[in-house]
């Protein structure tokens, strides 16, 4: 059985004007490889600006990748087959306000994918499908004719999820779908993502900058830093035995419910700022803030290697 999604050496550079008639590539995503299995959730964490959103969008070809290949169920995604691939892969956006067109009713927003792919034979069938989707995400059927601005953030996000589900996708990129919501609503929405996965068997690339959220929903977790993937492992393994110094510091910042353990925990505070992606450090991208950095780190980029049981790390020292 092949993987659902294989991403190989994905690169996404944005040309940035740095002077008159001069552009410098901004390496938002630089050489990333990973796979996602059928029905799995891969969590993707990292500080804001490290390129998580860009990974999600390049995988879905919302940006034309600079380099690298993406395979969906073994078929390479190209410019020519992207239209049919859009029925398999969808996206839920971070901002529940700007991701819904304020001039469209809920019905038309959820129905748009159906319209684009002509997935119904008459308007009755269209309406039925829309109402089913609304029920699936916990929206009231009476809300079908309302406009998006009449809803709360949580409900808007549900509309966005229903739109993504309309084409029956096998894979959804969830780009920080809860970070704009109240904490109490976050739990509801995350639970809904899980229920939908159980029901429909859809796989997620679940992006978040919050490890707490990601560890709850993910089977595996990937950690990104400055456009590079630095660690990837099963979520238990990553939480209990982080290897990369950056993951270590991220985990040390996660609150621990048990006060006894918390007391013995040491918090690693990173020094300095994230370097600009326009001006990457040589060698390991994390070396300017790493407390284990050696001379080799400045010269050579560490390889992303398997340390056993699918635990991938990119570090020379650890």
């Amino acid at each position: 059985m092949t993987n659902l999604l294989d991403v190989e050496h994905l690169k996404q550079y944005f040309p940035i004007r740095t002077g008159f008639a001069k552009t410098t590539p901004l390496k938002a995503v630089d050489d990333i490889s990973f796979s996602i299995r059928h029905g799995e959730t891969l969590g993707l964490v990292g500080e804001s600006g490290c390129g998580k959103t860009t990974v999600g969008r390049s995988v879905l070809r919302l940006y034309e990748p600079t380099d690298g290949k993406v395979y969906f169920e073994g078929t390479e995604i190209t410019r020519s087959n992207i239209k049919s691939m859009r029925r398999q892969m969808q996206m839920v956006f971070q901002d529940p306000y700007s991701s819904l067109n304020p001039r469209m009713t809920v019905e038309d927003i959820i129905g748009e994918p159906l319209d684009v792919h002509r997935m119904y034979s008459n308007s009755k069938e269209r309406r039925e499908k829309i109402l089913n989707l609304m029920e699936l995400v916990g929206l009231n059927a009476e809300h079908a004719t309302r406009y998006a601005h009449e809803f709360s953030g949580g409900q808007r996000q549900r509309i966005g999820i229903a739109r993504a589900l309309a084409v029956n996708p096998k894979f959804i990129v969830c780009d920080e779908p809860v970070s704009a919501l109240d904490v109490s609503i976050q739990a509801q929405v995350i639970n809904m993502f899980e229920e939908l996965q159980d029901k429909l068997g859809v796989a997620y690339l679940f992006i978040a900058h919050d490890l707490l959220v990601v560890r709850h929903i993910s089977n595996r977790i990937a950690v990104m830093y400055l456009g590079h993937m630095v660690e990837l492992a099963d979520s238990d393994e990553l939480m209990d035995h982080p290897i990369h110094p950056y993951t270590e510091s991220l985990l040390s910042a996660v609150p621990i419910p048990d006060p006894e353990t918390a007391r013995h925990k040491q918090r690693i505070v990173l020094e300095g700022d994230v370097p600009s992606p326009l001006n990457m450090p040589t060698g390991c991208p994390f070396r300017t803030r790493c407390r284990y950095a050696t001379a080799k780190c400045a010269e050579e980029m560490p390889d992303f290697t398997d340390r056993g049981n699918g635990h991938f790390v990119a570090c020379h020292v650890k």
Partner: protein
Amino acid sequence: MENNSVPKKRPFSLQLDLSKFEPATEEEKRQQDVMSKSTTFFRDGMRRLLKNPLAVASLIVLLLVIATIVIAPMIVPYGYEEILSVNGRRDKGAKNLTPFEYSTAEKKYIAQGNSRFPHIFGTDEQCRDYFIRVVYGARVSLFVGFFASIIVLIIGMLIGSISGYVGGRVDLIIMRIVDIIYSLPDMLMVILLSVVLKEVLTFKTGSVLASLGTNMISMFIVFGALYWVGMCRLIRGQILSIRENDYVLAAKSIGAGSARIIRKHILPNCLSVIIISTALQIPSAIFTESYLSFIGLGVSAPMPSLGSLANAARQGLQSYPYKLIFPAAAICLIVLSLNLLGDGMRDAFDPKLRR
């Protein structure tokens, strides 16, 4: 990654004690669902507009003005270029009458038991009914204002959306042209262009264009050539900012093509701004038209316009001040109420003022 079994998930780590919560009753759930009455964007905007007293007052004034200029020519038995006559004979005494005054010939005519429609605004120095001239002047001014704005809208929308949607070098070149036109002193350009076009343009007599008059046509050309730049910039800016919204990206990720994205997502979202700025363009076009007519470059005689009427009134200003007051008041009334209405529309419909 040959191991395809899906690893176990962790239990949810937020510390919530579910036993402390009780399920919501059906009643409570229903209360959650009751939302304010659904309103469409248009109805919602109209409601806001009708709450604004200034906008409502301007709307009423405008409707009255429009009703007057439509109905008055049907009721008043005089033409705008008709020199008054009584019983088929030219009424030489009907010169510079004050409002509601009758000439000697007319008085005699009435005394014979006939009825004569009053000269509501009096008459001018060529024995023409002044009221009907002001009415026609307002007609011409509104017509010019409206069509000039439509011309500006069409040119601006076409070029602006190309500039915004295509982007790149095309955008760069268009924007530099816009900058150049913007930097020209516009009144000077308007005057120069009108003078030149007035000389250059000739039309076959009897054609539609000829009946409009060279001056009117040259005025439209002037508006089209100079004032599209504002609309163009506005629409380009709108498209650029709307394109950045996630819902456009969402439509792309669904597989929607450019045509659908423009039609369903971009245009509906800049429509209100386009309508509002067109509405605000009308009074400014009327103002420019009046100004041009005032300095003698506007519509050609005997067709009156509010500006040329005001200009003609200058000569007898000391004896007949009301001749300036009527057209000037009409300009003020129309321009002011259009502006106030446009402002009210912006407040009511601009999506940026609310969330």
